[in-house]
């Protein structure tokens, strides 16, 4: 994997990072690469904050009764953990960082379609984050990230500013989605047909469709809850004939597709990194490309599976249940493709590959426990217990986070022109994979036992599994800390990576590392697909 020893690789003299070094040149940039880097900083801060809240929650659970925070504080902590992780980390993490950085390069464009809007999406994100932080400092909401009515419309905690922060953040998501859809449709380079697009682009395209169509509904429902909370008129007050279940329908209409916003980009990353790690073409390119669209489309029709015990009729439950079974098939197609890509490949075990292995296990386990909860009768026992918590953490942390980390480790050399210490990369990947299992497998068992979610105080019989889960979370913490350390060190002291340290056929590896301001020295013409290795021996080498 590392470039041939003994050869001194030249670091490019001019690239997007040193073309203009004033603060103003960063804050007013229109360069999609710089915007991607700024988003990276933002989402890492969000991850650190959300992760801190997670650790605080886990440590509270070391004992059944009060450990070191009060019930109200606990309820605020899990709300903030959910809000920050879902909206400020998971949704923007891959699209706004790696999508922004790489989509134009991958399609041979100099930038996205609307660069100023792109910069606006960053500032909208920061404004939403500032409002939410303000709400946090004033106590924060205690409703859970799902804001179910009538609790959210009647609680006296700082719900309205938090809703406003999320509402504003929704615009950032929509703008990013519109930008990518238009870019991919109109700015592909010569020779780049749809069926030659990198699979990461397909994944981001599917994600962008969901972002554009689903987020407005979230905006509306946040607005409605805020109006009811602040002004006392709204659609969900049972005393005036309102239906709290209507809130759930509107909320989940967005929030279920939202989970596909979180996982689809990670799947795109895995498609890219699997082909590069195995130096082999993707085993069934078309199936993967279409399955991204399939998830985007079918994912819109499954929201009611969050409401099996909410008081819906049996017909609704049946319809949503069976559609949920179908959406799982698209993931099965992808898993089959990725494993098939490894068959008869030329695999090198690198840090991204370690994350791929973790991803595969967690996606299948987490995804199939998703099928399990979609099996309606089983969900009656599992709904609102730690089983569901474990299921979605398997997908969001086990799979989506592994995808993010794989992307970070795969593309770090391209974005910053330097390599990181591979040994420490493998150590932290191992810690994270082990720590993840230790944290969340006990939570499946807790759910089976009947431990409900959002419980500050719990019956004593659940304690040993909680302690096990907390122990695992400390491993996770160390794994992440190590990553931040060696990546930070690599930024300054890492060896020059060269144009293509992985020997990948992806289009982004044709340009220097880090890329020049306008992405290419010469605009590329696309004569082959991005994952075609057959007959070539692309050797990793310098520019």
């Amino acid at each position, binding site marked *: 994997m590392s470039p041939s020893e003994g050869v001194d690789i030249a670091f490019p003299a001019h690239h997007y990072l040193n073309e203009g070094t004033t603060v103003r040149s960063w804050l007013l940039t229109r360069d999609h690469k710089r915007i991607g880097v700024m988003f990276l900083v933002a989402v890492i801060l969000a991850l650190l904050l959300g992760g801190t809240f997670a650790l605080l929650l886990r440590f509270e659970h070391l004992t059944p009764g009060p450990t070191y925070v009060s019930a109200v504080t606990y309820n605020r902590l899990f709300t903030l953990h959910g809000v920050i992780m879902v909206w400020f980390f998971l949704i923007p993490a891959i699209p706004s960082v790696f999508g922004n950085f790489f989509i*134009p390069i991958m399609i041979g*464009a*100099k*930038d*996205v*379609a*609307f*660069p100023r809007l792109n910069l606006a999406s960053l500032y909208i994100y920061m404004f939403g984050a500032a409002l939410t932080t303000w709400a946090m400092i004033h106590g924060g909401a205690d409703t859970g990230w799902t804001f179910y009515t009538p609790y959210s419309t009647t609680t006296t905690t700082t719900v309205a500013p938090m809703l406003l922060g999320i509402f504003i953040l929704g615009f950032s998501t*929509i703008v990013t*989605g*519109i*930008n990518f*859809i*238009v*870019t991919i*449709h*109109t*700015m592909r380079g010569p020779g780049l047909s749809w069926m030659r697009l990198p699979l990461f682009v397909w994944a981001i395209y599917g994600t962008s469709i969901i972002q*554009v*169509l*689903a*987020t*407005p*509904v979230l*905006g*509306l*429902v946040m607005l*409605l809850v805020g*109006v*009811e909370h602040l*002004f*006392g*008129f*709204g*659609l969900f*007050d049972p005393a*005036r*004939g*309102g*239906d709290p279940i*209507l809130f759930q*329908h*509107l909320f989940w*209409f967005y929030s279920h597709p939202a989970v596909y916003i979180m996982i689809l980009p990670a799947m795109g990353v895995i498609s890219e990194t699997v082909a590069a790690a195995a130096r082999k073409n993707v085993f069934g390119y078309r199936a993967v490309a279409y399955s991204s669209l399939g998830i985007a489309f079918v994912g819109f029709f499954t929201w009611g599976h969050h409401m099996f015990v909410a008081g819906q009729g049996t017909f609704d439950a049946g319809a949503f249940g069976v559609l949920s079974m179908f959406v799982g098939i698209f993931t099965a197609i992808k898993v089959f493709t990725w494993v098939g890509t490894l068959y008869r490949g030329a695999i090198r075990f690198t840090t991204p590959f370690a994350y791929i292995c973790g991803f595969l296990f967690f996606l299948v386990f987490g995804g199939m426990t998703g099928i399990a909860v979609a099996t309606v009768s089983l969900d009656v026992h599992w709904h609102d217990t730690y089983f569901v918590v474990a299921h979605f953490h398997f997908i969001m942390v086990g799979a989506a986070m592994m995808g993010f980390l794989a992307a970070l480790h795969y593309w770090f050399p391209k974005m910053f022109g330097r390599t990181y210490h591979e040994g420490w990369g493998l150590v932290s990947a191992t810690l994270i994979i082990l720590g993840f299992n230790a944290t969340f497998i006990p939570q499946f068992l807790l759910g089976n036992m009947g431990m409900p979610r959002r419980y500050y105080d719990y019956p004593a019989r659940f304690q040993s599994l909680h302690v096990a889960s907390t122990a695992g979370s400390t491993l996770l913490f160390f794994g992440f800390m190590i990553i931040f350390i060696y990546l930070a060190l690599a930024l300054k002291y890492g060896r020059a990576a060269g144009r293509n340290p992985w020997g990948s056929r992806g289009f982004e590896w044709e340009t220097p590392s880090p890329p020049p301001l306008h992405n290419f020295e010469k605009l590329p013409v696309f004569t082959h697909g991005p994952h075609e290795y057959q007959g070539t021996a692309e050797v990793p080498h310098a520019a």
Partner: protein
Amino acid sequence: MQPEGHVQEHFANIDVQRQAARLGMWAFLGTEILLFAGLFAAYAEYRALFHEAFVLGARHLDARLATVETAVLITGSFAVVMAHHYAKTSKAGMTCLSLVVAAATGLAFLMLHGIEYWHHFEEGALPGKYYSFPEIQTAGASMFFTLYFLMTGLHSLHVMAGVGVLAWLAWRASMGAFSHGNYNVVEMGGLYWHLVDLIWIFLFPLLYLV
């Protein structure tokens, strides 16, 4: 200004730029439709639950005033179409005038709608917990008016934004910015105004007529 539209650096040529702007605008209009869709869904549910109150409420609203408002908005849409035509044929003065007319219709709509709101405020037909209209007290009456205010209120906010967009376009037109080679922005602004009109075309019968 320039006879040809200015091609931004990252676009290959003016056609790609126009195509991108158009696609982007349509995607944005899609988000607006989804935004209102949630309210229409809520309307559907509560109408089914509180049929009587909704019929009484709809009858009580001022359908004649609303018809005038509809005519006003449609006039505005027509003016916008004319503005597009004049921009395409490089008639700067008429472009500006058409856009001013369209913006004026928007303001007229808002004023008429404000009169409606004022009537309801006076008689106590207000949303949610403020509902105190003695004439209609059937179950769900306050829900009808809550939906009425929320849907027309959100729509009116969009009309205000549309007026702003049209006014800005009118100002640019008066500076001679638009011509045969550069009228795309007028088209985009016009699309937004048409959407605002379209949403009202759906709101009007559902709230006032059925």
